[in-house]
């Protein structure tokens, strides 16, 4: 039997956050993701759709909006807005309720690890798994466009992958807020689908409806649009891919006129805020320690 050491605090590094423990959870989440059929379903589906869109868009790739942001780029941005957000938000929302239901969360929290480390490890682990999925999807698109001698350059795909990953981290963080608030996987998944629908569809339609109903000034329209992380991603992606914000209508024109080159940074800033704020909220709820 181990000697009982009165200096246990030194042994375990006090009750502070230990990066070593976060790393253990990251490895566990990555191991699990590689064996999760939902993860593979989403990854294969995303890669197949990215490949299809690349092939469909290439014949018209001579129609380049500017600087390489052609139809392929636009199609991939739309795909990320739909599929990657759905994938990330549902993975984030399911992970903790599923562990709570199976009892594995109680098993882990019976070990010398804190809730903060479990939550951060889960977030980083899911982020790593999603980066791999995005790299696979955009990698397939890149290989196909290279083979077809199309206009989508490697740098476009790398920038798009980076921004898509940032959007997926937002969605994971939002998913974790759902996950720490729901005890059942079914309820968490339904809530995640609802939130995805609101972000992707109702956000757009709601803004359009508000404009028509209240004749919002264009600056408010831009603000309302860019506060939605999915729209912020679209703005940042178009700017990063050297496309024209005219595609966003009067709000895009206003944004370019008012903010100039900073508009892309605003989009990225909104995305970063949408990672930090929900993750902090999830941490506050999870740390408070609902009974297991």
């Amino acid at each position, binding site marked *: 039997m181990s000697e*009982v050491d009165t200096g*246990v605090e030194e*042994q375990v590094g006090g*009750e502070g956050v230990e990066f070593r423990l976060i790393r*253990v959870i990251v490895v*566990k989440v990555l*191991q699990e993701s590689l064996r999760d059929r939902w993860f593979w379903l989403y990854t294969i589906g995303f890669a197949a759709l990215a490949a299809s869109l690349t092939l469909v868009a290439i014949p018209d790739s001579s129609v380049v909006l500017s600087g390489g942001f052609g139809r392929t780029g636009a199609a991939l941005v739309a795909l990320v807005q739909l599929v990657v957000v759905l994938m990330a938000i549902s993975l984030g929302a399911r992970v903790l309720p599923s562990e709570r239901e199976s009892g594995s969360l109680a098993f882990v929290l019976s070990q010398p690890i804190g809730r903060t480390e479990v939550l951060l490890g889960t977030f980083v682990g899911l982020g790593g798994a999603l980066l791999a999925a995005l790299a696979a999807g955009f990698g397939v698109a890149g290989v196909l466009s290279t083979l077809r001698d199309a206009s989508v350059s490697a740098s476009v795909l790398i920038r798009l992958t980076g921004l898509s990953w940032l959007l997926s981290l937002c969605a994971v963080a939002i998913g974790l807020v759902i996950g720490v608030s729901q005890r059942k996987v079914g309820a968490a998944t339904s809530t995640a689908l609802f939130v995805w629908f609101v972000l992707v569809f109702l956000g757009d339609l709601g803004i359009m409806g508000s404009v028509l109903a209240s004749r919002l000034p264009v600056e408010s329209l831009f603000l309302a649009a860019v506060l939605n992380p999915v729209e912020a991603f679209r703005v940042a992606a178009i700017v990063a891919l050297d496309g024209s914000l005219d595609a966003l209508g009067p709000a895009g024109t206003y944004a370019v006129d008012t903010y100039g080159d900073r508009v892309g940074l605003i989009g990225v800033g909104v995305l970063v805020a949408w990672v930090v704020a929900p993750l902090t909220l999830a941490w506050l709820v999870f740390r408070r320690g609902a009974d297991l």
Partner: protein
Amino acid sequence: MITIENLVKHYGRTAVLDGVDIEIADGESVGLWGPNGAGKTTIMRCILGLVRYEGSIRVHGIDAKRRPKATRRLIGTVPQELGFYDDLTIRETLQLTRRLRRAPAERLPLVIEQVGLEQHAAKRVRELSGGMKQRLALALALLDDPPVLLLDEPTSSLDLASRELMVRQLEDLRGEGRVLLLCSHNLEELAMLVDRVVALDNGRVVEECPPSQLADRLGLSSWLHLSVAGGDEARAHELLAAKGFNARLNGHGVLVEVSAQRKAVALGHLSESGVEVLDFEVWRR
């Protein structure tokens, strides 16, 4: 040692624990005994910090509420509901726990061998039987050879052979200065494994004594189901009723309520009256 003072836990308006005080000395084995809902498992979950509670718990002087990680560092646990990561193998599950507990790598093959899972280390958890999962839980609890073991119904899902093996392993873990806190419904099992039993009812401690005295102190009774020779069931029933036993016939024999500590008295009366008892089973109330 473990010191629990005025432990209170409510689920909604229901008090699951209502002012529990327990003190366990170094090297002592203590059993928590009581009916379903008495609060045994909740005490374990409070010690591990899995639920919020009022009152104080100290493990080797460490406040479990203020320093839950440091407390859990001292505790190995076999929970009643075994929740693992189903897609991980036994070896991966042990590796995960070893890293969380900072146990030395050399312990891994030792504990796998100790619980007899060497042949199954590459199996995924979802492929394991209930008994193998229970052995895996024990292996995980022993990984860093902790000074405190919490065992919640550790034999509940085991067949007879696995139960005997588990009881032998738990017997070996007693002593050496290790604190062993064991929840069980089974008084016979507790009698083999613990020095003292804390009986709980409705979230309160109702008795504390050596396991051999608990049945008498709480007036516990058992039912004996008797199979008698030569169709003598009706006669056996009459004889036992005449001696003041609560007895009744069922389709296959005679049921008789006996004191948990004096089961053989009923058998003795029947033997003296020439009724041959072929077999009996004990059904504890």
